[in-house]
């Protein structure tokens, strides 16, 4: 028997209630902490780390939308993160190289700039590609897969295989992608010295604001009719189909949106951290973010963001302090969260609410 429905929480009917201001108030509080307090109290190095975690949080937001709201467990978000990151990285490399070739191409003996790279000189084109390429890949995969009603675990396996294939492709095409080392050694970011504290500070604000905007957008989407439909598809795809909707369309749109978010995150990650390489977007990093979302609470968008930031800190802290124990700890965390608290931290916080 393969009648395997997951048991998500019951979604309440949209009863007209007095507007709940707690959510927006909390959002405003977090925004003030993020945009005012953090830049004041954190030294530049720590602020840079936070910026990195916030780019992960953008990916997590997309995972929260696709997995938490839509029931599509995507294990390949690293692919889209990477596509966005490489698009940005290629532009920065070309910008640094001026009329010459990017440094790694010279090392691998490439003599003329590959045609694929040429249009990335144009910053507008590069930024457009950050959104278009991940979106197009996700749309194509989503259309082909969801149309045939391939879903659940099958979909998870396929996205994972895509991540594995992507890494091997990037590593193999040394002259085109920089191979295992990826793209690194950036000097200039849109006219600014990329390593300067002021640039990094500006980048932090950019990342934080982009995250805020995408969060509000995802939140509105979740509250909209489309969001309700998405939940319905997660909880009973066939019933939605019998009602005359096309679940494949709903899922494809959502998956594409989550991929676009991951692409934007990747593009922001490149100037913040200064590198994009296959190791940052393979099977393992993709899964780590899924787990971060599970830890934070997959059924709430805020949980996804919270989980990504917390797991980012935990990883940095433990791999500095106890590098050997980190993998054990991470594994144990997984088992405990999935086993005992499938709703994550947000689930714990909300439990009181429901009882009251």
């Amino acid at each position, binding site marked *: 028997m393969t009648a395997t429905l997951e048991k998500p929480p019951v979604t309440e009917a949209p009863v007209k209630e007095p507007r709940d201001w707690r959510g927006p108030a909390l959002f405003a509080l977090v925004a003030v902490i993020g945009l005012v307090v953090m830049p004041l109290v954190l030294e530049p190095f720590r602020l840079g780390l936070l910026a990195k975690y916030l780019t992960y949080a953008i990916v997590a937001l997309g995972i929260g939308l696709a997995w938490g709201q839509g029931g599509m*467990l995507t294990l390949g978000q690293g692919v889209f993160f990477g596509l966005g990151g490489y698009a940005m990285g290629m532009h920065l490399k070309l910008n640094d190289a001026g009329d010459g070739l990017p440094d790694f191409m010279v090392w691998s003996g490439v003599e003329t700039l590959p045609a694929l790279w040429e249009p990335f000189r144009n910053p507008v084109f590069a930024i457009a590609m950050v959104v278009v390429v991940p979106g197009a890949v996700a749309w194509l995969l989503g259309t082909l897969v969801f149309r045939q009603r391939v879903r659940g675990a099958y979909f998870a396996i396929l996205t994972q295989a895509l991540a594995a294939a992507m890494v091997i492709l990037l590593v193999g095409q040394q002259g085109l992608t920089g191979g295992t080392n990826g793209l690194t050694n950036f000097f200039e970011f849109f006219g600014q010295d990329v390593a300067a504290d002021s640039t990094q500070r500006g980048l932090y604000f950019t990342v934080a604001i982009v995250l805020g905007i995408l969060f509000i957008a995802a939140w509105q989407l979740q509250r909209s009719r489309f969001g309700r439909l998405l939940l319905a598809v997660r909880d009973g795809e066939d019933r939605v189909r019998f009602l005359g909707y096309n679940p494949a369309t709903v899922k494809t749109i959502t998956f594409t949106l989550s991929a676009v978010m991951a692409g934007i995150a990747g593009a922001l990650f490149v100037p913040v951290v200064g590198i994009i390489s296959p190791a940052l977007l393979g099977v393992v990093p993709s899964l780590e973010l899924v787990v971060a979302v599970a830890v934070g609470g997959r059924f709430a968008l805020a949980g996804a963001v919270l989980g990504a930031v917390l797991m980012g800190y935990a990883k940095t802290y433990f791999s500095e302090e106890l590098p050997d124990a980190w993998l054990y700890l991470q594994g144990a965390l997984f088992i405990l969260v999935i086993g005992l608290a499938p709703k994550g931290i947000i689930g714990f916080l909300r439990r009181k609410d429901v009882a009251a």
Partner: protein
Amino acid sequence: MEGILNQLPIGLSIGAVLLLIALGLTFTFGQMGVINMAHGEFIMAGAYTAYLLQDFADRNAVLVALPVAFLVAGLMGLILERTAIRHFYGRPLDTLLLTWGVSLVLQQVARDLFGAPNVQVLSPTWLQGSLGPMPYNRLFILLLAVGSVVAIWVYMNRSAQGRRMQAVMQNRQLAATSGINTGRVDQRTFFIGSGLAGIAGVALTLIGPVGPTLGTYYIVDAFLVVVAGGLGQLRGAVIAALALGLLNSYAEFWTNASLAKVIVFAVIIAFLQFRPQGLFVLRSRALT
């Protein structure tokens, strides 16, 4: 022409290894809806078993290593099923994440026990040499897979236990109401499936080095075999595994290793357009 011929044993033996790995996955997935990411670590456990036995006995101990690795990996699977997985039946995506946590821990255990660098298992002396273009060690792997498939087929179709297993796979509730102890059947399936991964691990020591992350290289491909072959389908797994092994090695031969995986992925997606549920489908009236 000679290259094409040389590629054949490589493709067939990789397909045979994938088959051994995928058999366990397809039954646990098809019967229990469990996606076991730690399956790859059972391969690794089997490979390290062969490595240890080689130190204790000698390099020709492969025939001893096979049953021992089967037991070691099988018991690991049984323990995992009893302690964790059985609480998650019907939640495939959660088992996937849970078992990935287990797989991380097991990899780290292997790193602590055997060290991070790869270790080498020497091929037995009686497997050196080749039959035409077919090296003996790859031929041995192929025979191992054929033997395992025959054994599984006999078990499933000719033994009472195996028929119970099929019954549970087709309709769990009905099987339970007919008096089958489904929990017991699940344990057996898990034991056998994990044990086969252990055998695959021993087979891999014949063609390459052994490291803590050995399993991760094969697990994704093995899952693709399950997807392409159809859930819980012996025939499907056999055809899909050999096809994938051959496709992989020929795609590498004609293009290069980095494009091969992309081609394989594209072929699978294209294949799913025609047969979204894989080669063979277990007929059922249940609506997912």
